[in-house]
């Protein structure tokens, strides 16, 4: 049995994915330090590489209707191996969740509230995320529209306000960086904003209608990609060669807004948008983690897991990295490596095995 009884519509999936991808806009900074003014093409290249992989997620979800990732793994790889792979996935979900919670804390401590203790943000944020997760996926799916619209509003309005400061010659020369750097950038982009959509394998089982799942997924992905592109283009056009030195490129470009000395200090805009969208992202990750764990152990409900896991997540987030420098180094170099099999290998492999073995077998019914 699938642990989640709630149902979401295709439209809601679209906005969940859009908000999820867009929620990584702040993480583009990991790439900017490496790919400089070519970030926009790295985003596009990353998209092209991940499109077939994401397609395999959707096809897999369609092949196993009303099942989540843990159930699929059990069915495809057998009881034992399936469980091992599921644990690997759960580890990935929990770690990524703690990194994202830490991102919020770092955002606040660096730019918005300097003197407040770091742990305070983690606790408040995680408490809110836990509350949202306890309410279930349906609630999250319903508010995702609002979140995506808010995020897009912030991005587009800042883009327009900065148009007079943009210098599009900053994108030249088009191909300058060595290939290895571009490759690393593509890897980061394809793993972090796009590849992480593998979590939706846990959610797509809740779809009430899988008919248009492919279309909706890619539409959502497109909204996310376009917002990432707007962010990358805005930052490069405004800051140019200096964009690599800042802790947060987006924040810095928005601090430059100065329209008639009246419209200044718009930092709050991106603060609001980022908080909301990372909240959506973290909620999805947290929801996926608790449902995966309770599915793994055959619990009847995931609710008892929410608070203990939230506590663990806060502690992990507070201690996992020493500083933003540590965070960036590990994410750029190690973080994207361990997630490779989960994102790029297992889902397509599952699909292949399912095709060969003719899974799911109709006579065995649903569930394990």
């Amino acid at each position, binding site marked *: 049995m699938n642990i989640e009884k709630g149902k979401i519509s295709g439209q809601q999936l679209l906005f969940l994915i859009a908000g999820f991808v867009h929620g990584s806009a702040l993480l583009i900074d990991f790439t900017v330090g490496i790919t400089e003014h070519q970030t926009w093409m790295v985003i596009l290249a990353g998209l092209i590489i991940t499109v077939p992989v994401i397609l395999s997620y959707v096809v897999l979800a369609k092949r196993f209707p009303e099942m989540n990732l843990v159930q699929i793994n059990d069915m495809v790889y057998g009881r034992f191996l399936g469980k091992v792979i599921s644990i690997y996935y759960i580890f990935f979900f929990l770690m990524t969740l703690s990194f994202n919670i830490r991102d919020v804390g770092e955002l606040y401590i660096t730019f918005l*509230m*300097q*003197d*407040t203790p770091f742990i305070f943000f983690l606790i408040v944020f995680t408490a809110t995320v836990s509350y949202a997760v306890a309410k279930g996926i349906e609630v999250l799916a319903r508010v995702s529209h609002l979140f995506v619209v808010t995020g897009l509003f912030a991005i587009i309005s800042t883009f327009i306000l900065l148009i007079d400061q943009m210098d599009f010659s900053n994108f030249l020369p088009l191909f300058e960086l060595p290939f290895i750097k571009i490759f690393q950038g593509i890897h980061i982009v394809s793993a972090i904003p796009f590849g992480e959509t593998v979590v939706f394998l846990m959610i797509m089982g809740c779809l009430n209608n899988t008919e248009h799942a492919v279309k909706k997924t890619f539409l959502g992905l497109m909204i996310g990609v376009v917002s990432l592109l707007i962010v990358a283009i805005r930052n490069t056009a405004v*800051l*140019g*060669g*200096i964009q690599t*030195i800042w802790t947060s490129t987006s924040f810095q470009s928005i601090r430059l807004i100065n329209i008639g000395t009246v419209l*200044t200090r718009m930092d709050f805009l991106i603060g609001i948008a980022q908080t909301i969208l990372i909240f959506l992202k973290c909620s999805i990750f947290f929801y996926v983690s608790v449902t995966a764990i309770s599915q793994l152990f055959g619990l009847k409900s995931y609710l008892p897991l929410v608070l203990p896991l939230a506590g663990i997540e806060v502690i992990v987030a507070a201690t996992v990295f020493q500083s933003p420098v540590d965070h960036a180094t590990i994410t750029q170099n190690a973080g994207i490596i361990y997630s490779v099999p989960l994102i790029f290998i297992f889902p397509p492999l599952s699909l292949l095995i399912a095709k060969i073995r003719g899974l799911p077998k109709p006579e065995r019914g649903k569930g394990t």
Partner: protein
Amino acid sequence: MIKKNSFLIIKLIICFSMCISLSGCSGAREINDLEIVIGMGVDKDKDTGDILLTAQVVKKDAAVGGAGNGGGGGGDGKSFWNVSSNGKSIFDAVRQITHKTGNRLFISHNQVVIFGNDIAEEGLQEYIDFFLRAHEMRPTTMILIAEKKASEVLDAKPETEKYPAMNIAKLVETSGFTSHFFEVNMKDFASCMMSGTTASLAPSVSIVQEKDNKDIYVAGMVVFKNGKMVGKMNHDEVRGLLWVLGKVKSGVIIVPSPNKQGKAILEIVKAKSKVKPEMKDGRIVMNISIKEESSLSEQTTTENLATDKALEKLQEASAEVIRQEIMAAFNKSRELKADIFGFGEMIHKKYHKEWKTIEDKWDEIYQTIELKIEVDSKIIKTDLLKKPVSPIKKEK
């Protein structure tokens, strides 16, 4: 039912207690505790080698009191307080100021940062970091270079404005009327320093003695190469630079009238520029084309200049003036060996493969660059007069 109600009450109590406890007082900074800084000056203490930081702090009483000077027995009637402190670095000095102010400085509203001449000669590289890194600093803060000491500039009390720093900011903002200098903020300055070949510039500010009053005078730009001051550019040279960058907003061009008896004074209305670098067998040619529109604002001759023939000659003459200004700027930059135009970056963007080979020798190559200047100057209006004020000769 009762159980449900009591649960609701507990929830409400928790919510309200959270409102009180979560709003928090740790790190609270009330407005009357803030030392609002509107300008900063950085000098070097020659004896000890320390930084001498001067911060211009708003006096809250004077600011609230409005026009009345010296409210509450303020003594000299100043509405600002220039507080200074020594330090091993800028941040050190900012913190050491708390010995005098009793509060941390609140720098978010800082308008200008003025560096003293000593610092500029030594190089801004090691001093600019704090102004970009500190979260209270804005990247839009203006940079200026004092001719002598920054603290003296901040001391000169303006006549109409209350605060010297605000006055300087206002002076810089009006640079568009002459295009004799331009506003440079922290971000612009830092981007030039990042590029490696492009020289950074910052407007120069000095004090002129007028009878018994000291006036602030902003004019000309200081040129920095790799963060170190290498020279100064005068009015015409700066405008020559601005023509090429396409940043001329307005200004005055003076040309002799066609019959050489007087002058015609033109005001620039609009200017655009296009720069195309060209590399031909190792030689670099910069094709600069400038489109300028101006109006006839004044004339000092009795000859009627509002005729097609006269205007054409004026246009030619003004194009020549623009060309001379550009060449003056270019010659100056060659003399200083500083790429103020950013030609290096332009070539980097267009010929990035060749750029790798010439990047290291850029200083020598810069001397051999050729400029091809095309100026299209137009006079689009003659303002309120169509004939000069002179006795009209009746045609027979």
